[in-house]
């Protein structure tokens, strides 16, 4: 019955199955729609990172002499805006603030919301009641209204915009995190881990996080598109980013009166928001089915 030590020492010879995440990545790579969406997103991120090298002109240099030129003007392939600034350069630079304002709040809300929801779900009892009832109150606002209420009260500015949007996305993420954690907590392997005498922190780290972060993450990626639209929407309303910074929502706002002169130039920033938002949505859908999570 006793086995030789050599049998157990050669760990390298153990056959290993690919882990869960490598399976997810493999399935995702077979999804052409998700791959195209991912390529677009990577392109947008690269555009934001390397704008100074990509953009043909200075996005801030205005000229009253060449205002609102049409698409295809020599030297200004996408025309110029109401202050004569190069549209192509402004759209390229716009990726920086638009992505920052759209993605950061979801990122922050992912951490804060997961922390609140997992804590509430794992600890249960009074902690759960306090956290979840507070979340319910914020959930009772339509997200657009809450974002506008908060940033309307706080006033314009990048920081206030980020803060408002983060607060908007914490409740939905906390809700998902709480329900997933409550479900996982009741499963036998968590009970077995408790019976092993492991501390709550260890159980959460080894047994809870690995099983709840995936679903929460997928849900959060689905919020990025909403966040992008909302963030640009805030700037569109004069909240959020302030002029003269290039940001797609703000550009859409300042070009609104130009629709009678150069309608298609005026519509370009919105197209960028649309492309970004739909790419994130398609990637999120692909990720969801690759991770086999029910909607």
């Amino acid at each position: 019955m006793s086995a030789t030590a050599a049998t157990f020492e050669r760990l390298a010879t153990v056959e290993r199955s690919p882990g869960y995440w490598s399976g997810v990545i493999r399935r995702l790579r077979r999804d052409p729609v998700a791959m195209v969406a991912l390529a677009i997103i990577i392109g947008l991120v690269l555009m934001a990172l390397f704008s100074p090298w990509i953009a043909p002109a200075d996005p801030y240099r205005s000229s009253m002499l060449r205002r609102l030129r049409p698409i295809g003007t020599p030297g200004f392939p996408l025309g110029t805006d109401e202050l004569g600034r190069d549209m192509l350069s402004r759209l390229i630079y716009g990726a920086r603030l638009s992505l920052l304002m759209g993605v950061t709040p979801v990122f922050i809300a992912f951490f804060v919301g997961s922390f609140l929801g997992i804590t509430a779900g794992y600890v249960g009892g009074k902690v759960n009641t306090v956290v979840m009832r507070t979340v319910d109150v914020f959930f009772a606002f339509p997200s657009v209204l809450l974002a506008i209420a908060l940033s309307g009260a706080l006033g314009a500015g990048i920081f206030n915009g980020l803060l408002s949007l983060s607060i908007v996305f914490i409740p939905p993420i906390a809700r998902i995190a709480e329900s997933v954690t409550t479900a996982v907590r009741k499963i036998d392997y968590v009970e077995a881990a408790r019976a092993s005498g492991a501390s709550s922190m260890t159980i959460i780290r080894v047994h809870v996080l690995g099983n709840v972060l995936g679903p929460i993450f997928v849900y959060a990626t689905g919020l990025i598109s909403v966040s992008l639209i909302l963030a640009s929407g805030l700037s569109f309303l004069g909240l959020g980013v302030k002029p003269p910074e290039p940001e797609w929502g703000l550009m859409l706002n300042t070009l609104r009166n130009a629709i009678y002169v150069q309608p298609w130039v005026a519509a370009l920033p919105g197209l960028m928001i649309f492309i970004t938002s739909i790419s994130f949505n398609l990637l999120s859908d692909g990720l969801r089915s690759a991770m086999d999570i029910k909607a």
Partner: protein
Amino acid sequence: MLLYIAKRVLYTLPVALGVSIVCFMLVHIAPGDPLTSVLPPDASAQLQAEMRRLYGFDRPLPVQYGLWLLKTLQGDLGTSIATGRAVAVELWSAMGNTLMLAVLATAIGFVLGCLFGFVAGYFRDSWIDKLASFVSIIGVSVPHYWLGMVLVIIFSVQLNWLPATGAGPGGSADWVWDWAHIRHLILPAVTMSVIPMGIVARTVRALVADILSQEFIVGQRAKGLLDLGVLRHVIKNAAPTALAVMGLQLGYLLGGSILIETVFSWPGTGFLLGQAIFQRDLPLLQGTILVLAMFFVALNLIVDVVQTLLDPRVQRS
């Protein structure tokens, strides 16, 4: 069942109270003093103190909240700093315009969404499904304020078929049900309907696909039972959820109409909010948000109760 409804109503009260606290706090998280926007910059310290007392800003927060809540419950939402008129009066006319827009948009979105969703779910995994799913994903991904601009560019600027802004000819705000006014409603309503359309389509597609994959339906179809019977079954089972989604979407549109109302200069609550933000008119901001949020809370409650009545199996917690 009655107990569930009673519980659901009771549960709404603390949420509504919490919502009111958040709205109350909006004025207090604002940087600076809410009075600075009305007072001249060189106002004397005495005038400032007097105004502060007049508005009640000198008392402790919980007391201020209590007084504010009491006033609010009596229908007094305060006075607009910018116009000097009662917030409730400003809201009343705006609310009607927003409701009209949101209800119409929800109706359009619901009909189209059901259609797309049903076709997609019925012919699951066919090219029709892929197309319908793509349309619905566009619906939830498009920045609707931009879509509004594009529609204005096409139908007002290029084709000159429909007016671009306002709620009536010559900027009149009084609504009349005639073509001159209805023309103004078309573009904003269609723009707004895109969001509920996408979401309703997604929901209905999932519901229909799920119902059709149930064994007894597969059996009925195999037996060659007339599709009409299957159709009736699908509608009966999908309707409660689809209606609930529609109700919630109406709430989201009411609260989220600001962007579209800004694009079309539609004189509704969103437009009012925009003004309040632009002029830093905090009482107006606070009152509008409170009313819209309470509308949403009430709508949530109604949707839950109606859904429970239609389908007693569903009891959302």
